[in-house]
């Protein structure tokens, strides 16, 4: 049973269009994260959240918004998609802030192509 589920798994969007990537977790974790992964690179943090109603900027937040309407759900929003946002996006959930050694549990990724 997948504890972190992302949708859609694949998406083709047009430049200037709006894209919403959704994530649902059943781990009952407070923290959730959105990372992007580009070919030949590791994961880079876009936005994260400590709980419902909270969103924080990560290392590369420009061009992205996030929404955490509930403990279980965390969305990543591209209001005006650009080709440079073509990437694979991963959602993760983890333990409480302040917990030493916070293990992250990842979804299977959402592949986005912006044409």
């Amino acid at each position, binding site marked *: 049973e997948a504890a972190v589920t992302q949708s859609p798994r694949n998406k083709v969007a047009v430049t200037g269009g709006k894209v919403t990537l959704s994530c649902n977790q059943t781990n009952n974790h407070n923290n959730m994260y959105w*990372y992007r992964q580009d070919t030949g*690179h*590791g994961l880079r943090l876009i936005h994260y959240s400590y709980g419902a109603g909270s969103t924080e900027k990560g*290392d590369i937040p420009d061009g992205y918004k996030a929404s955490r309407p509930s403990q279980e759900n965390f969305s990543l929003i591209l209001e005006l998609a650009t080709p440079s946002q073509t990437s694979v996006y991963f959602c993760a959930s*983890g333990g409480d802030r*302040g917990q*030493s*050694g916070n293990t*992250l549990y990842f979804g299977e990724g959402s592949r986005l192509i912006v044409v």
Partner: protein
Amino acid sequence: SQWGEENLQALSIQEGEDVTMNCSYKTYTTVVQWYRQKSGKGPAQLILIRSNEREKRSGRLRATLDTSSQSSSLSITGTLATDTAVYFCATGGTNTGKLTFGDGTVLTVKP
């Protein structure tokens, strides 16, 4: 090794061989995690090592951590073709819960 300005590393070995992957990090940390990512999947944690452990084993895996040199290593003994994946080290996660990942090592194990 991973991190800093270094690009993705790649290793190709035969099944049964042992392999060690290295990681150096810039920001002080007391915890290093190693993740494995198989093709088309999300990363999954393999092992977590704390500064007071210096070495930690889990099955065929062995991780080390040297905080004085800000480096960590992951060794796999008796590799299998199913060990083929990208391996990442990650630091952070203490105050904010955020993890910072290295660029990764692509390991190919040929049967």
